[in-house]
């Protein structure tokens, strides 16, 4: 198909495009879901990440 000799290779090509499409569809469908305000532990983690990890490097 499309000049490709092996169906298995064509399938890989098609599945690559299809899975990228799946990612787009999933992301668009869930675009506005899952918005949570940051909790104290998130901010505490971020502070520690800056001070202990990033400043070290």
């Amino acid at each position, binding site marked *: 198909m499309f000049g490709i000799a092996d169906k298995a290779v064509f399938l890989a*090509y098609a599945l690559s495009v299809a899975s990228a499409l799946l990612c787009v569809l999933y992301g668009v469908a869930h675009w506005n879901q*899952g918005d949570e305000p940051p909790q104290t532990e998130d901010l505490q983690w971020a502070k520690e990440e800056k001070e202990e990890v990033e400043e070290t490097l």
Partner: protein
Amino acid sequence: MDALTLLILLIYLFAVAYLGYRGYRATKTAADYLVAGRNINPIVMALSYGATFISTSAIVGFGGVAANLGMGLLWLTFLNIFVGIYIAFVFLGNPTRRTGHHLDAHTFPELLGKRFQSRALQVIGGLIIFLFMPLYAMAVIIGGAEFIGPIFHIPFNAALYIFAFIVAAYVVAGGMKGVMFTDALQATIMLIGMVILLAATYATLGGFTQAHQSLTEMAPRVPAALKAIGHRGWTAMPLFGWAKPGSSGPEAIPFNLWWTMVTTIILGVGIGVLAQPQLVVRFMTVSSRQSLNRAVVAGGIFILFMTGVAFVVGPLSNVYFARHETIRCRLVDDQALLDPGPDGKGRLTLLPPDALAEVISRAKRFIAYRLPGDAEDQALRYVLWTPEMTLTRGTDGRLDEIRPGLIAIARTATLGTPLSGNADAIIPHYVASAFPKWFGIVFLLTLLAAAMSTLSSQFHAMGTAIGRDVFETLTGERHSTRSIAITRLGILAGLAAAILLGKMVRFNIIALATAIFFGLCGASFLPAFLGALFWKRMTRAGALASLLVGFLASAFWSLFINSKTATGLGLCKALFGKETLIPASFSPTWAFVDPLVVALPLSLLTAILVSLGTRPLSDDHVNWCFGGPKPR
């Protein structure tokens, strides 16, 4: 360098410097955003993740493997998107983020260590990362050097040192912090470059179907050595099967390529990506589930155009080199002889003036030439001569023309490489040959930037592995002067190790080294990681046992069973006098099975059986790990 190339180069550097300076004022790492309680643009987050994931290893290394072995590598693209983006972001991302923040873990080993109340887990995990990440870093650096070489026509070793110097300067200038804006910018330019690469390739070769058709028609030109191990053409999968136990000679080998391609390259990287330490910590830097959902869009598209393009353009480069390449040059010597050594497998060398007859008879004929723009004292360029080649001497001062008519891997054979060529040089040669110089340079610069973001995340992981996971866990010191020093020294040691390895093991190594590291991480860490996030009954003993079994099984298989690694490392031969320990009564195909497909099931089984057979962690602790209050 001609005026147009110089102009475009200057515009590019100026634009990057300007945007970098504008961005510098607002220089923000992910942690900066989190501290401020703000959301990063999800496209920026996804592109930054993509730039960390994709590097010269993927484009140059795996692209070169695809050019050699064919479009079957697109199965890896499928896994990269479906597993590396979709499954990783949708199912693992948010639990990793919540658990990481809740347990206050800043590295992958720390996440496992706190979840399973095991300092041993954190220390051993840290050691594995620190000792083996240089392999992957080496692959990325070699990829950069293999690209710099052909574009600027300088020797590999010089290119290696130049790139290493650029990386070191980047590290010292504080580039380690993983500034997302810069990452995303470079990723965008890379994306544009890859789209141009794909469109131009299809256009030159006659369109979508015609290009594939031409490649299919070239199947008879697969080198005999590759045919013998199962290569059936660049638009077909290799031959699948399992050699009869005890077989030898030609009957022993016809399925080797399938098993190497599928188990090492496709599965090793495709599955191993889930347990890559430098990618896992990325999920902890995201502000909410919504960011992950939105990032999936950009992530999927980005990976498709990075690896998808590389694994299509790579194989198609065979059609370009065989049917389209025309080198306009000045012929210097159309009977240059290069010596491949007594077994034909050595690096090609020039013949000494007093060469023996037997050396002359085994030497191969090359054409030596110079491109316009090459300096007179610059090293000559070489291309392998075959009867298919046409040579046209230019009249009236016009340039000479060579139409080599070679397949891609053969086109890379030159002074210093093996006669069979260097897959890692195919993509650089293709870009240098088929595209205007300005495109090659811009593509190179963005490729190097993608490599830089990967390298910075690797060094980040190496540094925190030895400083925080090993040293701080063992000594109990937190963020002391000593631990900072050890972290920074660890990074330097890792860089030095990567460069040293790069000089030792060059040629056809990028994809293999990457796959080895991904497979090792997958077998060692994946069961414990999944258990940490999803299985409350997993115990400390189960996690630790699965880590050790996964690591040791991978090591054993790599050292004593898998032919490529066992022969390359040489320990089996040194200790037992044999290349591998596979009994003669077993199928020889076992030597081409990747450690991952044996070690991962073993470590998974170990995790389950040992967990069920040992005392569970306290309910209070498990509750805490899954979102509850911290026990007193």
